[in-house]
């Protein structure tokens, strides 16, 4: 069984915890975020490259890249960068957090998730912004922790990339 550490990175209230909760059954309560600043959950996923156990480190929301604890990122095989599609500032924060994450763990697979896709009325991210990121060969997905849209896919795609990395 291959185990992989995955970090959830993003600003406050972008929906990281909700995404994780959508994805796993947790044994720890959410109050760990306010005490230790991180909560670890586990999910076994099947990818074409094999079965993998994801250890999801859901790190508390960081407003700037200096708030992000590097020690929590250490050893991660991949990460999910989460932004709130209804607050464009969270996207820019995600970009700077990505720089910080890459400093900490190197170039490992990651996905950018634009969350809260169910709130189409107040959606602020333009398609061309996403395209610009895709130009940088980023994988950008829209997700909704509320409806479940894209959640499974996001975790699976990240797992798959990590497994390809592992085997390659």
């Amino acid at each position, binding site marked *: 069984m*291959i*185990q992989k*550490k995955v970090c959830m990175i993003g600003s406050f209230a972008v929906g990281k915890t909700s995404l994780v909760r959508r994805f796993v059954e947790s044994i720890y309560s959410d109050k760990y975020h306010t005490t*230790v*600043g991180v909560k670890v959950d*586990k999910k076994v996923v099947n990818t074409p490259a094999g079965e993998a156990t994801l*250890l999801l480190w859901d790190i508390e929301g960081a407003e700037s890249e200096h708030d992000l604890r590097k*020690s929590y990122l250490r*050893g991660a095989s991949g990460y999910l960068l989460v932004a709130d599609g209804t607050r464009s500032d969270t996207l820019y924060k995600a970009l700077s957090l990505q720089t910080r994450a890459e400093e900490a763990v190197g170039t490992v697979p990651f996905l950018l998730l634009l969350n809260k896709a169910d709130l189409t009325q107040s959606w602020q991210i333009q398609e061309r912004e996403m395209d610009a990121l895709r130009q940088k060969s980023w994988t950008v997905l829209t997700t909704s922790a509320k409806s479940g849209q894209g959640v499974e896919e996001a975790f699976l795609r990240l797992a798959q990339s990590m497994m390809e990395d*592992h085997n390659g």
Partner: protein
Amino acid sequence: MKQAGVQDALDPSSAVSTSNDDETMAELRTLLLGPAEKQIADVHARLTDPNRQLEEVVHVLPAAISVRSRRDGQLADALAPTVTSAIHESVRKDPQPIADAIFPIIGPAIRKAISAALSGMTQSFNQTLAYSVSVKGLKWRLEALRTGRSFAEVVLLHTLLYRVEQVFLIHRETGLLLQHVSAPGSQMQDADMVSGMLTAIQDFVHDSFSTAKGDELQTLQVGELTVWVERGPLAVLAGVIRGNAPHELREVFQQTLERIHLQFGTALSEFKGDASPFDSTRSLLEDCLQAHYDSQPKASDKPAKLTPLNVIVSLLVIAALVLGFFWLRGRWRWDNFIEQLRNEPGIVVAETGTRDGKYYLSGLRDPLARDPAVLMQEAKVDPNKVLSRWEPFQALTPDFVLARSKRLLNTPNTVKLSLKDGVLNAEGFASHDWVIEARRGSRFLPGVNGFRDDRLLDLNRVEDPLLMFVLDSAELVPGQSEKFDALVHDIERLQAQAEAMQKNVTLEIYGHTDESGTEERNATLAAERAQTVASELQGRLPRWTNVTVRAVASKEQLRNEVTEADRATNRSVTFKVIATDAQ
């Protein structure tokens, strides 16, 4: 010049080369390196000649092994696989040499193992028994009921000094779990997540509180549980311990972690998420799953040893028991005696108790009541241990009134007394004197209000009548038939009473004469007169059973003969009643 020569000699591009130069070079080399040349050749030979190398290793090998073994255990770790496979190979080829080698130790080892297992079994059996019946055992049973755990588990928890319940081997960089072992029966969460959180907490503590580089979280304490964290460069060993583990256990953790680093160094540094290479760390981690139980039986549980003090104490206890038994028995007998006295008629117990190691007893006693000394003997109470004081009194219960009446009235056995409503009844027959005396005396008897004797026959009625005879004849003086009839009637009553009282009565009839006549004639006449009356009575009442009539001639004269009346009186028969017990 010389410098230029050297320059030339060292310059490979120099095209000019003469034999003269060669000689110069050889000479120069000899001059410069002459003394070292032999050494260089020697070093060269040592480096290239396998035989020489072998010799040298042979020379230092024992010392090197010895030095390294003293320093740490790495040599043993390094050699272990080789030695293991060598032994395997040896056994595979020919098991005999190994069998021969271990033969001397295998017997004692088996014996030791068996005796250890047996003694362990006995001890645990004893412990279970002890815990089952002790107060502690009951408490634990209650706890087992309350918590829903098994009794064995509760006993284990309470006798536990410490137990390493879980050991995590965690990859330091990623916080991913490499291996996890747990003691049987310990509760556990998902080890992968625990491993992650444990790492996160360490990072958190390190980032938040570290004062100096290298300071790390070493211990987490949660109630009865302690988490010990040992950190290596590539891996972290975390042990979850219940109870208070000794410091030596930390050294065990450290050594285990060092050994893992030594054996799995490469695997640790190349770890990418596949924990399978660390499967073989299991046995190492299991060595950390140590537990110590409070299996020492308490002093109070041990069977008492035969020490002089114990013997003395035992003897004292036995003596106390024996004395206690006798004391109790004495006490019990005394209480019984008192109880009997209280129930005894005519005895009133006023005070009882102990004084100066003796029982004392005081009260009232009717003289007619049973003797307390006899009662005491019957109750097996030692009279020497009793001080008693009795005041006489007269009990007024009917029994006592009656008994006292019989006694004070000097009642003959032909009279039966009974008491009814305070009235004394007399039945049977008695002398006239007694009847008179009883009538008089009964008035002074306490508890007696009256005296009835209508069913009592006054013997005067039989003994008093005087039947007179004609001078010098055995013929009754005429006109006495009424008197005779009355006599017969009274004798019938006597018969009835005698029968009722179970007495035999002899009615003696004495014939008397006056002074006239000869003595011989008078004797005959007296006998005839008595016989006449006897025959007459027997004729009248042939069915008497308890009354016997006997004729007796008496020389005795009833009166001094002064007048003719005296002489007439003397010509008579008199009666006497003699009562005997019926057979």
